[in-house]
């Protein structure tokens, strides 16, 4: 019994099967268009299409575009083509009428607040007294791990827009550190007349070498790491909105989530549709709201991604409360390693906003010597207020 999927007798032929396969990949989040179907069919003509392994290789070369897609491709290929001889009835999926998971109602849970100007997830920032009688509502903390929690319930589109504005300003504060002076450069936008004339003396007054100057561009790359463990879930909404805004405002920024694992969410957040980006992110942040291993996650970051993305012109922003379930030694080792890459490290701690806060959490105390800046941040306004500090860095 071969493992290859058998297709129903009324199946219109190989072209539609390929189209069906591309649609199957598309449903699983690979970004493929119509042109890829044609390309895949042409590719099939170039290999021996009855050998499954050759098909697999050819289609992999055509349909994938980055490492993680290439890693997922095998299972997707198997599920479509190697379905243990089962008969596929429908090759080309029908357009779905059922609600899809990338359409998401972002209706706010407005039912809980008593008419104040804040919402259930964003505090009142107007500075006025709320109109409720102040009994408040006790939210019991759930100890279990809320895996598969949809982050879209936490963030609304207009909050992201607001956060985007903050992030944009912040990115600009970090990035646009141009000086007015121009300095000599091999490739500049203007001629460096003084140097050109000076050099031309050697060639009898002929300016044979044109020397140029440019404004030194001292750009900064922002790398943000956001803690989404249980203790942070109250603040996660602000930070996630901020991250989403940051990614959309700044082409060079990079973002990660961590709890007990570290996930890179840069690619997901680059999605043009904000809410869909957050949706993709929540799929990745499996284990959202569980425990936290800050030290280990940062260690992983320093050992892997930091080598590729962090250099002397990076600013690493860590958004976390510093409550680590691991010994603090791991955290300080990871930060020391990051420091070695020559970057600036900023730690934004939502707890620091409290009047009597002192960094006594073991992790936080261990981290302090390695930080360039340690600031409170629990609302967007706080994040916005960071701007002048960042300029000073």
């Amino acid at each position: 019994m071969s493992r290859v999927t058998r297709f129903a007798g009324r199946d219109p032929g190989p072209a539609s099967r390929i189209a069906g396969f591309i649609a199957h990949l598309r449903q699983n989040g690979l970004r493929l268009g119509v042109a890829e179907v044609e390309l895949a069919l042409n590719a099939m003509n170039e290999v021996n299409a009855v050998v499954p392994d050759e098909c697999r290789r050819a289609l992999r070369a055509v349909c994938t575009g980055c490492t993680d897609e290439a890693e997922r491709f095998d299972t997707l290929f198997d599920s479509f083509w190697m379905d243990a001889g089962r008969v596929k009835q429908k090759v080309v999926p029908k357009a779905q009428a059922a609600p899809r998971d990338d359409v998401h109602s972002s209706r706010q849970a407005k039912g809980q607040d008593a008419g104040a100007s804040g919402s259930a997830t964003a505090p009142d920032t107007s500075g006025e007294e709320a109109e409720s009688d102040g009994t408040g509502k006790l939210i019991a903390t759930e100890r279990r791990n809320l895996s598969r929690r949809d982050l879209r319930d936490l963030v609304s589109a207009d909050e992201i827009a607001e956060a985007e504005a903050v992030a944009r300003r912040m990115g600009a504060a970090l990035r646009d550190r141009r000086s007015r002076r121009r300095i000599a450069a091999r490739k500049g936008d203007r001629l460096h007349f003084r140097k050109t004339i000076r050099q031309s003396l050697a060639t009898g007054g002929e300016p044979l070498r044109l020397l140029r100057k440019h404004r030194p561009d001292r750009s900064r790359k922002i790398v943000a790491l956001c803690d989404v463990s249980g203790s942070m879930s109250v603040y996660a909404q602000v930070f996630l909105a901020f991250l989403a805004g940051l990614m959309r405002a700044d082409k060079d920024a990079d973002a990660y989530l961590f709890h007990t694992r570290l996930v890179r969410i840069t690619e997901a957040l680059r999605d043009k549709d904000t809410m869909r980006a957050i949706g993709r992110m929540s799929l990745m942040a499996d284990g959202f709201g569980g425990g936290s291993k800050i030290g280990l996650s940062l260690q992983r970051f320093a050992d892997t991604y930091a080598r590729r993305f962090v250099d002397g012109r990076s600013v690493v922003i860590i958004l976390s409360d510093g409550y680590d379930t691991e010994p603090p030694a791991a955290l300080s080792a990871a930060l020391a390693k990051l420091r070695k890459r020559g970057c600036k490290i900023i730690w934004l701690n939502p707890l620091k906003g409290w009047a009597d806060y002192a960094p006594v959490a073991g992790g936080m105390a261990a981290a302090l010597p390695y930080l360039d800046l340690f600031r409170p941040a629990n609302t967007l306004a706080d994040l916005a207020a960071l701007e002048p500090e960042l300029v000073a860095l």
Partner: protein
Amino acid sequence: MTWTDLQSQLGRHGYVASDDLTVALHLALALERPLLLEGAAGVGKTDIARTLSEVRDTRLIRLQCYEGLDAAHAIYEWNYQRQLLTIRAAAEDGETGKTVEDRIFSRDFLLERPLLAAITQDRRPVLLIDEIDRADEEFEAYLLEVLSEYQVSVPELGTITATTKPIVILTSNGTRDLSDALRRRCLYTYVDYPDMQTELAILKARCPGIEARLGAQIVGFVQKLREEELEKTPGIAEMLDFAAALMGLGIADLTDDPTVLHATLSTLLKTQSDQAQITPDVAARIVGKAA
């Protein structure tokens, strides 16, 4: 020509290509699409372009990308000095104006840079765009335009259209995320470190004189070494250097002399912390595991 033919041809030129890579390369040739290769440093991404140019007996044109690479350096530049001298010489002869201008903005005064050179050859050359991730996005967009139209427009001359389509191979180490548009234009393959058999075949292809037992030991050792937590994982080139060093020292067995083995590790470990991590004891242990 099937992809297996291509694989054996590459093999004859000393490049042991995995099936995945060969199929992708074969499709890139057949469908005339650029091929994007991603992978760690030292897995033979650049080398495949060189070997392919040897197989097809054609020119290899290489464009090494770096931060701040601009279109002028990649496509064409005017030979300014020559233009200046021509103007001066013309002025001596009393020639001025339009005729001189026409003369100094002709093809003779154009310095071809890799991209322009690649589309004006008589035979299809192999164009290797190395480490595309180091160039900025602006350049990437420009490159896309050249790769989709296969023409270059020079304002003073008009448009130069390709005489032949080059075979384009791009490599990336993943220091930056490439744009979706570029990924969609290209076929894609992730090149990983070779497995034991492949690496052994590479060693045999490059060092034909090596004894089978020592070869297996070397490859086993390097394979195990890649599993350690190193800052810089040794690639294939490092493995070949290591083999050459051992053969040069006349060592027939890795387990013979731990001190000599440790001395030759400088061919594999390229940072101070990596060298400190692999002490002679650790090295001996890895050799033991690999044996």
